[in-house]
């Protein structure tokens, strides 16, 4: 009996240790990747990296100014398209989403959330690039917006649902029409959460490459025209990483570090947006009553 009890206690301790080690491994992977990025990329970050355009293959030096500007334009335009649709869909789901249409929209959003981004890329190619006759940053932005909308819709819905019912009832009781209640009381209360969701969504699309391969395409020169091909950091990293030159690899690491910094900044800003409002990160939504 004691032997059995001992065995059970040993198993319990071992498994506790094992899951702890597994967690450590997962965090270690992150630390390794970030550490490599800094170790291999930081030394290349100088003034010319940020201010110069790429030089022809084989030459040393050059920068990724065009890719940095391009990323900002492509992602910014995608956010302009994606944010209203995504947030509007989320509000619909929270306000009117109890019926059948709500169920369908919710389900489609979750399914689209997992759609391979490359498929969205060829979709944007057929609908925008092919009719227009040439690659364009705009097509890339649309593809990124499509990727962003489902996620944004679901986060917005979740955040709006966290707003207490009493607040809505109070506004309605004061004679506010529903739409003003929804926009000026409910959505405003959930604003911090919606901003968080938006920032996370933008962070996610900022690193996307696959949907841009056949839409924004990439551009060796500096371009700010959204109807023309445009370079982004992610496309630049792909080109440089798969290319044969050591100089390209060096620049790829540096560009990756910049892109990662951008994404991390957005992610941290997202957390800060919630924290500044509530004083602490939000608790996970309460489990539903069973």
């Amino acid at each position, binding site marked *: 009996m004691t032997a059995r009890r001992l065995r059970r206690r040993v198993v319990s301790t071992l498994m506790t240790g094992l899951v702890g080690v597994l967690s450590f491994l997962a965090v270690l*992977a992150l630390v390794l990747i970030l550490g490599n990025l800094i170790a291999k990329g930081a030394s290349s970050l100088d003034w010319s990296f940020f201010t110069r355009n790429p030089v022809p293959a084989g030459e040393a030096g050059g920068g990724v100014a065009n890719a940095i500007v391009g990323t900002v334009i492509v992602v910014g335009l995608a956010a302009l398209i994606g944010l209203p649709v995504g947030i509007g869909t989320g509000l*619909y789901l929270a306000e009117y989403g109890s019926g059948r249409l709500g169920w369908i929209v919710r389900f489609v959003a979750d399914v689209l959330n997992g759609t391979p981004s490359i498929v969205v890329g060829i979709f944007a190619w057929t609908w925008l690039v092919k009719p227009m006759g040439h690659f364009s940053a705009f097509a890339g932005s649309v593809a990124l917006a499509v990727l962003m*909308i489902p996620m944004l819709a679901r986060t917005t819905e979740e955040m709006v649902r966290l707003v207490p019912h009493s607040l809505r009832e109070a506004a309605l009781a004061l004679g506010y029409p529903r739409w003003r209640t929804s926009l000026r009381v409910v959505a405003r209360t959930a604003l911090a959460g919606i901003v968080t969701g938006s920032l996370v969504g933008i962070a996610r699309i900022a690193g996307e490459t696959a949907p841009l391969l056949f839409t924004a395409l990439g551009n060796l020169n500096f371009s700010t025209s959204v109807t023309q091909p445009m370079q982004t950091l992610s496309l630049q990293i792909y080109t440089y990483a798969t290319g044969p030159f050591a100089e390209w690899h060096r620049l790829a690491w540096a560009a990756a570090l910049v892109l990662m910094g951008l994404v991390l900044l957005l992610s941290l800003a997202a957390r800060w947006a919630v924290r500044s409002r509530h004083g602490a990160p939000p608790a996970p939504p309460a489990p539903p009553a069973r």
Partner: protein
Amino acid sequence: MTTLPVEPLPAPAPAPDAASPTPHAPQAGWRILRGVNAGDRLYRAALTALALALPLLLLALLAELVASAWPALTRFGGRFLWTSVWDPVAGVFGAAPMIFGTLASSLLALVIAVPLALGVAIYLTEFAPKWLRQPVAFLVELLAAIPSVVYGLWGIFVLIPFLRTYVVPPLRAVVGWTPFFDGVFYGNSLLAGAMILAIMIVPYIAAVSREVLVAVPSSQREAAVGMGATRWEAVWTAVVPYGRAGLIGAVILGLGRALGETMAVTMVIGNRHDIGLSVLQPAYTMAAALANEFSEATTDLYLSALFEVGLILFVITVVVNACARLLIWRVARGTAVGSRAL
């Protein structure tokens, strides 16, 4: 002179008598209470129009893929799925190696990622000290924030050299006689692709699993511990089985992610159009084929074949994701469990 008939002024306020069912009483009061006015109708219509965008988008995606893939669909039929010849010059296309590679790399990634992710989720919900939970959860979720192309870069220049030096030689020494570890290891391989995929999907599986485990009522744990179970036994016999459907959903969700992952896999899997059993050999995936060949497709039939590849990939991921969603919803009905992690 008679006084002109004056229009009766509408009731200035929705007085209580507006509630009386007299047919001539102005209905404005009720309308406000029911929330039906022009602004509301407009608001609802606008939101509904925005919300309809998503289902329409899904339909448009599907329709466009089917339409563009039609020439290849009618020309090759089922042969497309199980033949291996991919010859753009001769106009013969069979996608079996890509389909095999996609499934093999994703399933292999699951084998590596599931224990890791479940371990993280269980540790964070059941064993970790309180002060450690938030930071570790945040760090693991950060793995999901790393762009795919950065994973690819890391895979090429860090993971593959590491595998070549430290993993493959001992692996070959022990199990080199099996067909699964056959051949020369050049670096770009199914194994490298699966490893990268595994790291990439860990945060998704872990985040959803964690939310599922958090949703398990604590009475489950208390009952098990009260009957004399050790803490691990409580977790393994009372908590995990309770959340089983949701955990399976989380794993399937990770599978969906892995199936559609493009850039990182394209950069490390080797892109060889061939079916091989050895994980040390290069392979190909559907997403990689699209990334590599789509802009180079010179003939209409070639392009159409690639669209069919996209269609197959899309249908597989939609089915996989739908299954995952239904399972997760069963655990946490109506809430957006896991959607934040997506």
